[in-house]
């Protein structure tokens, strides 16, 4: 790729651990795009500011996971744009805006009721994790509970959300 002194420490880790990273990307569903994504990763770490990183390999796996999610998000939103275009071309099936807002409020209420039924902390923990972006260990410290309680609250929240989303989709 380039001469030894031109590549960063992280890039050296990519070279050394190429097999493991590629295997992860393939397992993450990228198939033939795994090589491409690894190349993206290579370029990103070249641009990254040079600061010490405690565990470079975990850092790279994390960056790879984020790249996979970005890719997937852009595929999904492209599909959705396509889908929306079809929807708007059939305006007769669309619900009036007021009715849609009503349904959205009703669903939100249902989500909050479901989370509240799982215990006093579940919504709070989920919010701190997903909306405030706090680490689970930090949430555990803040609330004075064990990390496993935080994990279990999240597991309950994810489970309830999955069930509700499936139910709403079926409606």
């Amino acid at each position, binding site marked *: 790729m380039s001469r030894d002194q031109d590549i960063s420490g992280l890039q050296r880790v990519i070279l050394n651990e190429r097999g*493991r990273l590629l*295997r*992860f990307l393939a*397992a*993450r*569903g990228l198939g033939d795009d795994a090589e491409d994504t690894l190349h993206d990763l290579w370029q990103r770490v070249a641009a990254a500011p040079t600061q010490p990183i405690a*565990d470079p*390999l*975990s850092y790279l*796996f*994390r960056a790879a*996971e984020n790249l996979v*999610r970005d890719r*997937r998000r852009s595929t999904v939103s492209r599909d959705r744009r396509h889908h929306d275009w079809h929807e708007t071309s059939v305006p007769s099936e669309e619900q009036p805006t007021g009715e849609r807002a009503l349904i*959205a409020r009703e*669903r*939100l209420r249902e*989500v*909050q009721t479901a989370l*509240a039924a799982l215990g*006093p*902390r579940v*919504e*709070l923990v*989920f*919010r701190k*994790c*997903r*909306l405030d972006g706090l*680490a*689970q*260990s930090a949430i555990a410290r*803040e*609330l*004075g*509970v*064990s*990390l*496993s*309680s935080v*994990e*279990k609250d*999240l*597991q309950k*929240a*994810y*489970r309830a*959300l*999955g069930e509700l*989303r*499936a139910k709403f989709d*079926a409606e």
Partner: protein
Amino acid sequence: MAMSASDLELREAARAWAIRVQEPAFDGWDGFTLWLESNPSHLEAYELALDDAAWGGEMLASAPATVPESQPRRQWWLAGSAAAAAAVAVVGGWAMLDRDAPAQRIVTAPGEHRILDLADGSKLALNGATRVTIDSDTPRQVILEQGEARFEVRHDARDPFVVLSGGTRLVDAGTVFNVVRDGDALEVAVAEGSVIYQPGADAVTLKPGDTLQLPGKGARPVVGKASPQAIGSWASGELQYDKPSAEQVARDLTRSIGRPVRAAEGARRLRFTGTLLLGGKPEEVLARAGPLLGVRFVPDGEGWTMSPAHGPPR
């Protein structure tokens, strides 16, 4: 819409991975890769868990919280003692166990090892591709559904520790023992103390170095001998053998490295006595083990076939 038990279990496992991977300190990427690779449905379930969580985040972002913020500061001592109590009850990996939780099913990916610290001080080491259920209502009982686990049990004569597997009950009498469940076959080996197999009419008491094999449902148990320090040695990253059968070595390697290893047909007992180290990639483990065992590992699909080093070519 009814989902099968295995579907529900898969979704639970996928959500657990999504939560673990989310944590900045997560470093189990190879285990995560193995889990994803072990079945194509795993990726789909993982993506679904991510989508569900993202969807929930978007929903809640549009509304104020309906729960109180953190406790007021004057209750610091309460929160502190709760945290301390939790730390005493369970210290260890991520799959820790709360008293108020419902029954918990814990699944390891092929090649993954995990230690569970139970609330009563007992310790459970899970080998790869293993499934156990633990219920905080019955803290002295573990159900081994599949795979291999090494139990280090805190003994209490008034409240014996029980392992259920298939139709079999194992009751400890203060002990370290290893249990393998492979389909309907069951194998128990005792390293320290003693274990009572199926208490009742046909109870068998197993002492250190005793093994008991149950080839299948309704079969008669076969009692044998093993070297006590070899029992459950996989939990400390090594496999100890005293002239094992080729099948046993193949099975142990499969569980520990997470890729299939088969014994070639007609393989016999190996002459090897000693220790195999499990560290490193599967290829590295096999490269070290081959010369010691006097076998060759020939790539075969996703895994390897093990045949005698000097035997005829396949």
